[in-house]
């Protein structure tokens, strides 16, 4: 018991964030109409592109004096993440644009 409590205390911030964001995620989309399933999925997909922050941090502090594996793969990680972000948001917008113009 003490160990579990100690574990909780050590990681309290992380545990709070996890618990609350799961709740928010469920709450926010649980009543979405099926019309929006695809755009919602695609928009959420673009948000998962936040990994780009990790990519920027990684490449940002990489040693540029030699062409290391870290630098090359990190470069690709940033490209991939950007594809996810830009592609995801643009495609979602394009889909929603179609839904919109019929509202005449």
């Amino acid at each position: 018991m003490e160990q579990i409590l100690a574990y909780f205390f050590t990681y309290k911030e992380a545990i709070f964030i996890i618990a609350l964001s799961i709740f928010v995620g469920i709450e926010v989309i649980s009543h979405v109409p099926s019309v929006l399933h695809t755009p919602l999925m695609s928009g959420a997909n673009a948000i998962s592109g936040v990994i780009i922050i990790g990519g920027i941090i990684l490449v940002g502090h990489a040693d540029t004096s030699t062409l290391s594996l870290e630098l090359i793969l990190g470069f690709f990680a940033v490209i991939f993440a950007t594809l996810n972000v830009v592609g995801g948001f643009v495609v979602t917008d394009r889909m929603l644009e179609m839904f919109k113009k019929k509202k005449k």
Partner: protein
Amino acid sequence: MEQVIGNLNGIDFTLGESILELSYLISALLFVFGLKLLSHPETARRGNFYAGSGMVLAMFTTLLLHRDASGNGIALTNVWIILSALTIGSVIGWVVARRVKMTAMPQLVSFFNATGGAASALVALLEFPNADMGNYESVLVTILGLIIGSIAFSGSMIAYGKLDGKVKDITSGMMTYVNLFLLVTVVALSVYIMISGQTPEQLNWAIYLLLGISLFYGVMFVMPIGGADMPVVISLLNSFTGIAAAMAGFIYSNQAMILGGILVGAAGTILTLLMCKAMNRSLMNVIIGAFGANGAAAANTEGGVMKEISLSDASILLSYSKSVVIVPGYGLAVAQAQHVCHELEELLSGKGVNVRFAIHPVAGRMPGHMNVLLAEADVPYNQLVEMDNINPDMPNTDVVMVIGANDVVNPAAINDPASPIAGMPIINAYQAKNIIVMKRGRGKGYAGIENELFFGEKTRLLFGNAKDSLQNLVNEIKSL
């Protein structure tokens, strides 16, 4: 920005660091708010814009203000490298997202999901050498980011290939065991990495092996999934990418990444369960038992005859109906018949017929597939009616027209407890006064299950490619 403005737990913090964390908070709020707005038709576009702005904000404040553990900012050379990667990614992403045909939307969503997974896996792989091996949590999040990111990447690529028609389903009884073996290996290897007590350099082989097996598992996991189950798998892979990003967020203790990732993970999971519910199957059942592989129970269609309908009869029947419901399925997408379908709907509406579309939650190959397809053809979304709302009207419907759909209208789901789709909620097309089914041939549907609706008393079939059939029907009605 370098100015020290305070002290927390004995560590000085600067103005820049405070602004950076504040920007992460704003980004996280924009993500939540954006997702919230995305779930209502009127506000969806704004929601997408907010979420996108949150992302741009987080990207640029990170680039400008991030400091490593020893307080060094991002050097100018690195900034240029990052900016060029951002430019390459943006240009490709923009062009692909703008150029690709709307009908290729399911593939595209899968493809972008794959790139997100790949980025997470790469970041975790490259951060592994910096992991604190004494700290289980630090190693665990890195390994999980690698595993989940890899599975999301290779799984989504296979899903992309399948939706694009480039990859065929491969089902074999062996696969369940192979997959189980792969999973056990992944777990064993992860435990070994965590408790072996070796340095990251010594464990290099293990981490690359883990990457390889995870990638392979992703392929094997999506390979046997049948087309009818694709919506479940696509939303599941979507939630994987989110979780992988959250794991990477833990590596950097970055709240925006953690929150964004978990938000997507939770949203994706909900959508996955929603899809499962729409098929009355458990997630386990979808992943392990591929549809139709269990030797589809023969429906009682012995002696039943499929009755054809001529074009002129069909056009007369439709034109003089009061109420027509169109049930679209994947066949409509394959034949790219959405535009001519809309033409037919307008033509009939012009004659005073009440035309509506009945949308089953798992019709097509991704969640909401039919909605996007019909929206592309300018069908107003208030004419798209969800299953639960259209079913009470079915007995009063004069004609139901089933276009390239099969399992979602199969009454076996209700009548036959032995059917593989028993218990799946369906659109009650069989209750309508007349049923016209457009079908390419006399074969069974994707799931390989006979559909007794096609043999019913009130059912007439119109054979041929959906686009051609619809075009002929439109011409016929015009000439009436």
